[in-house]
């Protein structure tokens, strides 16, 4: 009973929080429409690579494979996507190249951590270093692209004040990331495939006894995770910036891990967490725009990380990783 009551209270509190945020947005929109819209649009933009990175992590970790290589996968995807754009000039080909590169990185991670049963942290670290060195070595100054993915206005919806420009006037990968959040959520919690993925991540032996091919499930999941990380990289070079720079992921792959944990390994949770991180970044910028110096802007930037620690420490319900995470599966 007390457990039930706790859950109820928690649900009420979260609904109250959501309602509070919505009310706050309306008040601020009433006061300064342009600034509020800009702030929220920036929030969505800055959250996109994070939510994609987190989805990548969810795929891997839900099936029991730790993925700290999101950063490296993103960077490789960003670089290969950029090169494809430079040499083919076709953005669709470039996005596919980024995704394919991500898949390849996923395969490498899967091979090392599943087949070779390597320590998954080491496998991930190796990939991160490899990505940094390879892209740094092969990148040449002066390569330029002809263009990047541009916003697509969704008619009618984009004309709604506030919500329109923030949600319905975005470039393709941003839309795709929103779709992916919902799709992955349904996949993970409403399909047989999702049930198997989770089983493999929680109790691989039990999954094996009912005839699920643990190794195969993990391989597929890690490769898909790599593909999404590659897409996140493609987002950076093909949609957000339009150009590549050495080490341009700048830790976004690691922040995505925090986002995944904050979201308790669920797609919707990760999306909410990514929005919070994005919002903190946007707010930090806005503070500087407004010349507010009473609160140092670094403090605002720190907020999401503090909250992640709070979540990890168990104050906001329990954040529990999949039980079999990090353990290679040994068939008996």
């Amino acid at each position: 009973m007390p457990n039930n009551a706790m859950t109820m209270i928690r649900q009420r509190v979260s609904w109250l929080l959501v309602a509070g945020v919505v009310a706050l947005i309306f008040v601020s929109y009433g006061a300064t429409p342009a600034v509020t819209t800009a702030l929220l649009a920036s929030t969505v933009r800055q959250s996109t690579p994070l939510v994609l990175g987190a989805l990548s992590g969810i795929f891997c970790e839900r099936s029991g494979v730790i993925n700290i290589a999101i950063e490296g996968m993103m960077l490789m995807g960003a670089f290969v996507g950029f090169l494809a754009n430079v040499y083919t000039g076709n953005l669709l080909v470039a996005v596919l190249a980024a995704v394919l590169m991500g898949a390849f990185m996923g395969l490498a991670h899967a091979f090392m951590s599943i087949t070779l049963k390597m320590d998954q942290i080491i496998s991930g670290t190796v990939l991160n270093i490899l990505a940094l060195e390879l892209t740094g070595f092969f990148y040449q100054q002066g390569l330029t692209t002809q263009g990047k993915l541009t916003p697509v206005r969704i008619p009618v919806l984009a004309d709604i004040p506030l919500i329109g420009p923030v949600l319905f006037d975005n470039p393709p990968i941003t839309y795709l990331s929103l779709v992916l959040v919902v799709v992955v959520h349904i996949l993970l919690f409403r399909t047989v495939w999702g049930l198997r993925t989770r089983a493999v991540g929680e109790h691989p032996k039990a999954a094996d006894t009912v005839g699920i091919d643990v190794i195969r499930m993990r391989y597929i999941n890690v490769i898909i995770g790599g593909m999404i990380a590659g897409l996140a990289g493609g987002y950076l070079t093909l949609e957000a910036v339009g150009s590549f720079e050495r080490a341009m992921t700048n830790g976004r792959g690691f922040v995505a891990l925090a986002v995944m944990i904050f979201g308790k390994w669920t797609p919707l949770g990760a999306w909410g967490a990514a929005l919070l991180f994005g919002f903190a970044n946007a707010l930090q910028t806005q503070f500087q725009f407004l010349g507010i110096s009473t609160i140092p802007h670094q403090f605002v930037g720190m907020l999401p990380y503090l909250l992640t620690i709070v979540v990890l420490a168990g104050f906001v319900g329990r954040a529990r990783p999949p039980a079999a995470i990090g353990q290679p599966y040994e068939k008996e």
Partner: protein
Amino acid sequence: MRKRTLLFILLSLLALLLAACGGSSEEPAAGGEESAQTTEETSGGEEAMTFKVGLVTDVGEIDDKSFNQSAWEGVLRAKEELGAEVDYIETKDAKDYEENIRLFADQGYNVIVTVGFALGEATAKMAEEYPDIYFIGVDQFQAPGTEKPNLAGLIFNEDKAGFLAGALAAQITKSGKIAAVLGTDLVPPVVAFKEGYEAGARYINPDIEIISTYHPGGLDVAFTDPEWGAATAKQAIDQGADVIFGAGGKTGNGALIEAASYEGVYCIGVDTDQWLTVPEARPCLVSSAMKLITPGVFDLVKMAKEGSFPSGNYVGEVGLAPFHDFEDDIPQEVKDKLKEIDEGLRNGTIETGYNPGG
């Protein structure tokens, strides 16, 4: 057991691969002499007669379309006009600064140019060790009390360049709102650019709205985060800013490229003429707040040759880059006003108000 062996093989392969990658990028520097790409045939016996100028780059290529290249062009001018014998070394690793400078010093070069703030320490040390060689440190501020007679730091009044950029921005804005997207405030020249920019804009229009932002990260990321620069530029444009000043390496470049995709938004680059360095930004790039490194380096080399080498800090010129495609769009009165301000900044009738000491 088999698994173990396989793992071992894989790990060693990876290690090899990493070593190969790391190795090949460092190879020239480690090899020392090989990295000194001779661009000019050495003229044998008459060594005592020739005036030799060597340049050591910061990590990066000589044709980086930025600091290294600008400084090298100054050295090349010395070759043409002063008959100097010139050569350069591309630094591949920050650990090799001293090593590379020494390569020139030991070959009896008369002047050694080192490019970039990061080489300051190594340059000062070498200047002490080789008192007969003149050293020119681009962007290396010589703190009072540490000056050496054979070392001149070529520094720039970034605040004046920023002032011109701000004055331009304030004259071409239609919304009355301009923005600056900057690297970190941990680097003094960036702060100088910002303060100058804001002062210049207010000089034209005291009521102008200026929204400026520094990158929140540390030195390691603040200049290499184009997506942050782009997202920040968008956030500024979304709230009505129509001129974006991007000053912060690749972070600033991200802001310029972002601004290029908006109709009616102008952008202003920094350091060099970014028309050449960031072609993606051309649709919006009206000008750049430049540090004129090439003439500064040439002047110092010339002074070294003539025996009138200044020690301590030598202040190079700053100015706005050509308008390129916007030449016809910028009204003549704006150009006249900028010229007037430029003169005012030079003869001291206009002050930027930037005072790092106080």
